[in-house]
């Protein structure tokens, strides 16, 4: 591998010191003189017609500066996918879930705003609710939206290859099911928004968002303001994991309140509102029939899925496609059929969450592979190794994998977790309370197409050399939401220009700086990283050309390294070229006196020669994917893959599951920052483990969330988490900068199934409903005792 001075290292993140000292500013930390506080009126009912909204009492409350409803906001439909714009800023005809937004208030303080909200009177006509996603499509069910016949928001029907042929070739065919529950992303920072309008009618919004560019577009569209008059700034963000990628009513309403009042307005969600707004993981109902040949070669997959998406489409169209398309890898699978339905129900809308759409599908498929391995009498890792794709192959749904360390990752976890030794025992110890399980995963490294139809560049990066010389500033619209993209951009720039990290300033997350589609689909390192590299190279070329011109040497003979200009063709005399620099810095005491030319001098001399030096980099993926309907979703310039082994112990009496350790390996192509890659893997392990064992949104009969808080919606604590071993695999992706591709989401893929497979090993029973709570496990163990013949030989 090429030697780098800073890439592939473990330098601390650029925002680390600000974050350990409390200096980092998150949206709610920002203060402004005269700022008003906003609050939202949420629907108390899951499904009702709005007959009348009376805001007069609220308006008269002293301290209230504005009250807005659909009358002020208008009813321009918006959403995520242009084909499914089904939301309006406020409800006007109906409310569709408990939490749906009806009105908003701006007042001098929070108490007044909340009191005003409580004074808004809404007359409803209650409607029957649809809460069960499996039954939402049935004839005669109440309909949520006129535009969704039978409550079907999207459906996908794909058939690649020929599954009938696959069936004929199969030696084993089996059908299995897996159901999950809606999740909450449970990022620690509740959404917060500040909006302000200046005297020229420019709207600026600060928001804890993952996607400033898309939010800018949505604000402009829904509020009917020219795009260039809208600026979205992302301060430090306390995690997003998907839900913060779509535009929210909080954002739209706060802007509207700022426009109405002419004052800055802040609106911050409380934790319950985070749950109500949701836009997190869908509920999935998967059924898969998989066939393999006698030698273990995969023959076909026939997959049906219903997604319960809650009240609105949000990201759900992409979700339903991802749920099918990402099973195309990481195994060679020639024949695949997929029938997916995304339905709407009277619950908070679901959207994207880490591992978008693919997590539960992956879990079931990997469980199936385990069950098939058992039927074949083969080791489950061997069965997987037999089927894994290699770099250069294309899946049946036309996804091309240009680099692919799947085999290496599987072998790495197998060896590191002492799989062979431990697993060889499990034949004898199956069902005795200790278990080990494995699984793999596959994920995009950046969506191949933007959400709106366009040839738009997916990102641009502008790097400007300080006119005074010395350092550079990298400007990018990319959104660092905690994953560390600012650090990646700084490291890439420092590497290219031979600068210390401290001389690279990164400003980002501002729609004024550049177009960047945002932090979703694990795209930033590959796409913005590539643009950033090109911007730095552009800068470097210009500096070296300027210096070469003065020195009368060919620019190819010069390089930038270790903060200096390096000559590749023997020693050069810099005394002449630095004369002017020395003259203009008379009085400075830190003047260069070395034989070499420092970057500080070179960059200033380049400015004297040519004026401001600005480098630009852009990235747009090449056309990707097939020509079938929905072929764009799942395409990516590169694919990450991962493998994992989990070990569990189970109390066979209480059903309590302890995850003893997790060993994961992820192919990220090339680790720009090794610590950050491991951090993404470990965070994925935690989120996946939570989903496997404890996380579920619980609704009552009226569609109200009964556990909308972080005590009853349990996420893993430090006590729940085992030691997490993260192994980095580097396959050198040809389409990624320096060979890099994703890690942020792909690493979650094998987590749930490796735990499910380990729990089976420990207990001898299979569970078809997530999360795998002690109650469900005990019930399944009891059931298995009653009819042992139906379970696989324990």
């Amino acid at each position, binding site marked *: 591998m090429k030697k780098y001075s800073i890439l592939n290292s*473990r330098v*601390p*993140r650029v*925002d*680390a*010191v*600000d*974050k*350990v*000292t*409390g*200096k*980092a*500013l*998150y949206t*709610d*930390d920002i*203060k402004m003189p005269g700022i008003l506080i906003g609050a939202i009126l949420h629907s108390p009912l899951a499904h009702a017609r709005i007959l009348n909204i009376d805001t007069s009492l609220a308006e008269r409350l002293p301290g209230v500066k504005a009250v807005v409803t659909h009358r002020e906001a208008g009813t321009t439909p918006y959403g995520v996918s242009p084909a499914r714009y089904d939301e309006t800023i406020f409800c006007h005809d109906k409310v569709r879930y408990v939490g749906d937004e009806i009105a908003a208030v701006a007042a001098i303080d929070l108490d007044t705003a909340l009191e005003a909200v409580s004074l808004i009177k809404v007359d409803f006509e209650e409607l029957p609710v649809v809460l069960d996603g499996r039954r939402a499509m049935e004839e005669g069910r109440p309909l949520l939206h006129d535009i969704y016949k039978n409550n079907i928001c999207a459906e996908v029907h794909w058939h690649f290859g020929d599954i009938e042929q696959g069936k004929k070739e199969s030696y084993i065919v089996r059908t299995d099911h897996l159901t999950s529950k809606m999740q909450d*992303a*449970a*990022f*620690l*920072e*509740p959404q917060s928004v500040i909006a302000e309008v200046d005297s020229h009618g420019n709207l600026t919004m600060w928001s804890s968002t993952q996607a400033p560019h898309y939010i800018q577009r949505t604000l402009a569209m829904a509020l009917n303001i020219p795009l260039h008059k809208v600026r979205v700034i992302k301060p*430090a*963000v*306390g*995690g997003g*994991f998907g839900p913060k990628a779509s535009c929210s009513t909080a954002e739209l309403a706060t802007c509207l309140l700022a426009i109405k009042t002419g004052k800055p307005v802040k609106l911050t969600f*409380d*934790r319950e509102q985070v749950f109500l707004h949701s836009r997190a993981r869908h509920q999935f109902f998967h059924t898969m029939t998989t066939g393999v040949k006698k030698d273990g070669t995969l023959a076909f997959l026939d997959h049906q899925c219903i997604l319960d998406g809650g009240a609105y489409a949000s990201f759900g169209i992409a979700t339903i496609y991802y749920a099918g398309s990402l099973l195309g890898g990481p195994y060679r699978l020639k024949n695949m059929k997929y029938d997916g339905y995304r339905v709407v129900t009277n619950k908070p809308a679901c959207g994207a969450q880490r591992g978008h759409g693919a997590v539960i599908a992956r879990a079931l498929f990997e469980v199936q592979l385990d069950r098939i391995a058992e039927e074949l009498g083969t080791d489950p890792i061997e069965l997987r190794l037999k089927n894994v794709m290699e770099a250069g192959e294309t899946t049946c749904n036309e996804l091309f994998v240009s680099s692919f360390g799947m085999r290496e990752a599987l072998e790495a976890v197998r060896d590191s977790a002492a799989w062979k030794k431990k697993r060889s025992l499990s034949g004898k110890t199956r069902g005795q309370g200790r278990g080990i399980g494995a699984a793999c995963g596959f994920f995009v490294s950046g969506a191949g197409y933007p959400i709106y139809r366009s040839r738009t560049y997916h990102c641009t990066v502008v790097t400007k050399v300080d006119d005074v010389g010395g350092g550079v500033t990298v400007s990018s619209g990319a959104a660092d*939401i*905690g*994953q*560390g993209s600012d650090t990646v951009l700084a490291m890439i720039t420092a590497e290219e220009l031979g600068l210390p990290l401290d001389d690279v300033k990164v400003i980002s997350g501002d729609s004024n700086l550049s177009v960047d589609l945002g932090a979703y689909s694990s795209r930033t390192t590959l796409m913005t990283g590539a643009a950033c590299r090109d911007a730095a190279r552009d800068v470097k070329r210009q500096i070296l050309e300027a210096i070469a011109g003065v020195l009368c040497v060919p620019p190819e003979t010069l390089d930038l390294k270790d903060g200096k200009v390096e000559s590749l063709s023997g020693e050069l005399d810099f005394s002449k070229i630095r004369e002017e620099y020395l003259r203009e810095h008379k009085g400075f005491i830190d003047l260069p006196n070395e034989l070499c030319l420092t970057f500080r001098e070179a960059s200033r001399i380049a400015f004297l020669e040519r004026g401001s030096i600005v480098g630009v980099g852009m990235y747009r993926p090449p056309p990707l994917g097939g020509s079938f309907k929905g072929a764009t979703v799942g395409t990516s310039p590169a694919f990450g893959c991962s493998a994992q082994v989990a070990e569990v112990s189970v109390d066979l009496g209480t059903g309590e599951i302890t995850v003893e350790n997790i060993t994961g390996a992820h192919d990220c192509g090339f680790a720009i920052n090794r*610590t*950050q890659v*491991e*951090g993404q893997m*470990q*965070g*994925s*392990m*935690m*989120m996946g483990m939570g989903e496997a064992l404890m996380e579920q949104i619980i609704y009552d009969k009226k569609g109200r969330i009964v556990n909308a*808080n*972080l*005590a009853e919606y349990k*996420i893993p*604590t*430090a*006590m729940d*988490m085992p*030691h*997490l071993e*993260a192994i980095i695999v580097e396959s050198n992706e040809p389409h990624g900068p320096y060979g890099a591709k994703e890690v942020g989401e792909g690493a979650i893929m094998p987590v749930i199934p490796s735990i499910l497979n380990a729990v089976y090993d420990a207990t001898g029973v299979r569970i078809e409903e997530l999360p795998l709570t002690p109650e469900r496990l005990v019930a399944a163990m009891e059931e298995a005792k009653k009819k042992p013949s139906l379970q696989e030989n324990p």
Partner: protein
Amino acid sequence: MKKLISLNVNGIAHELAVEPRRTLLELLREDLGLTGTKKGCGIGDCGACTVLVDGVATFSCLTLAIQVNGCSVETVEGLTKDGKLSRLQQAFVDHGAIQCGYCTPGMLMTTTELLRRNQHPKEQEIRKAISGNLCRCTGYQKIVEAIQEVARSENEEI
């Protein structure tokens, strides 16, 4: 009716008139501008708002300002001494124990208390101590490793 209270925050004495329902979290963030202390839930479930009150790790969202009358409060802004990071802060930086950073201030305060009480906690003691501080980003692995580095050292300073 507002009540007059006096308290010491990070070594600085303050006298303030506060509403009886004002929380310590609001007092710190809004009245004193110490926004390093975070609010993740407001009801004692997440630990993001943890500060030290007379040396004891406390959820500032569940503590009324009037309850800390006469107390000494330490927040994340007070961990740095003479512009230098504390060893614990430095260990968080070096080990990559920070991602989004929203849990970090609370995590640092809880751990500061732990290490003052117990200079060499074992891994299980560390995990137990921070189990009231949720982190959604890191899986806790690098946080635990950072704390372990400080816990291994014989240097009494945290």
